[in-house]
């Protein structure tokens, strides 16, 4: 049903400078459509910056980012890309339902279609009992789910989620990952960042970032196989150690 012909995101020669620091020194990446792609890496590795580039809110130094066949941030993409920032960006002085409704209207939903989309989304993020509460009276985890709902309501072709499961209990985390899987099965593309390595196994593909570079771009099975590690956490450490050793050899030779 979606644009499955090309990749969801194609990044080429991307360089980003924030403040005085070169956060992304040169990055090439292709994110396939219709998959859940996990963006993993320690804090400061450039995950959020890369996501900001994909949704087109980041000023880039050079390089191109193509999303669903259009340059990132172009008007054609505005109702096809959903973005959830790391800290919840919703209105604290509005009710849960009013927040989701407003963001639904922003992507062009109206009338019955809007009402149904809001009800469906509130069910998906498990906030139906809280629909009429003000966001400022909710817990942190609930607030981040409102923020997620605000992006889900428009059923975007590409969902860019920056650490959507932080602070959630295991049951809810599992339910959300089931929802991501369900969306991908229906042709949506998802880019989900996380630093919880056990979530890596729920992804179709993993992109490991370190200091703004792609350390690995593999399936979860390949990751374990390549490194011989027992879990994603150990695999990631093995990759970093190997990288450090290689760069150590280069500088000593």
């Amino acid at each position, binding site marked *: 049903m979606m644009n499955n012909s090309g990749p969801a995101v194609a990044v080429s020669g991307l360089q980003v400078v924030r403040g005085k620091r070169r956060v992304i020194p040169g990055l090439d990446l292709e994110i396939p459509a219709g998959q859940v792609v996990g963006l993993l890496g320690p804090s400061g590795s450039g995950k959020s910056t890369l996501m900001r580039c994909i949704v087109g809110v*980041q000023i880039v130094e050079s390089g191109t980012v193509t999303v669903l066949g259009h340059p990132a941030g172009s*008007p054609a993409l505005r109702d096809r890309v959903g973005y959830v*920032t790391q800290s919840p*960006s*919703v*209105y604290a002085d509005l009710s849960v339902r009013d927040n989701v409704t*407003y963001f639904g209207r*922003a992507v062009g939903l109206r009338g019955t279609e809007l009402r149904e989309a809001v009800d469906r989304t509130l069910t998906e993020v498990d906030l139906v009992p809280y629909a009429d509460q003000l966001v400022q009276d909710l817990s942190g985890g609930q607030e981040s789910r409102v923020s997620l709902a605000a992006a889900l309501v428009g059923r975007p072709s590409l969902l860019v989620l920056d650490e959507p499961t932080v602070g959630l209990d295991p049951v809810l985390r599992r339910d959300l990952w089931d929802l991501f899987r369900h969306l991908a099965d229906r042709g949506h593309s998802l880019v989900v960042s996380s630093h919880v390595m056990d979530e890596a196994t729920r992804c179709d593909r993993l992109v490991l970032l370190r200091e703004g570079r792609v350390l690995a771009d593999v399936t979860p099975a390949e990751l374990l196989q390549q490194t011989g590690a027992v879990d994603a956490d150990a695999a990631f450490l093995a990759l970093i150690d190997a990288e450090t050793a290689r760069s150590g050899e280069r500088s000593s030779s």
Partner: protein
Amino acid sequence: MNAGLTAATSGRVLRQVRTDHRTIGLIIVVPCVLLGLLAWIYNGTPVFDAIGPALLGVFPMVVMFIVTSVATLRERQSGTLERLLTTPMGKGDFMLGYAVAFGALAVLQAVIATGFAVWVCGLSVAGPLWLLVVVAVFDAVLGTALGLLASGFARTEFQAVQFMPAFLLPQFLLCGLLIPRDQLPTVLEWVSNVLPLSYAVDAMKEIARNPEPVTAVLGDLGIVAAFIAGALALASLTLSRRSA
């Protein structure tokens, strides 16, 4: 720009205000209290009839300036503005949404403040009362437009609030309320000629003394409307989809 998106934003802003009863109270009550205080100070003199209408124009501008600049700064800091700008919502939809929402609040404020000034404080004007309300609403929208512009330069709430004296006090001093504008030193008169509040106060003064003020007031309102359009256009430059 898109009327549906503008209306969605106005509706959302009014819903937010509705949950904040204290702000609504302040918007409605404070102008009435100040007008009452003024009427009392000048009890038995003709001064209140002369400056009361002008103040009916100044209050909505000040209140809407503060409310808008803080609200917009909150949108920038909470990330909601950045998020909205990744959707089909345009900058124009966003800003007009605010202008329409606070314009509607201004109608309420202006009707109550004018009613209070006339029937409780005994303000009498030569022109029609409804025109006082119309000018007050224009002033409120001017305050909103200037607030949107000022918030583009504020990084913190402290700065946003300090912009009130920076943007509005000079206009207040030069608008002809303290000294008629044609009696100001020449340079200051020139300055007052390029400040929007001067025309808002001119319009109010016209209503106070002229039984047939509509033509003169329309001219002044045209200038105020041009300032509103200019401020909104400049403010839209401070809203950018991309940041570093």
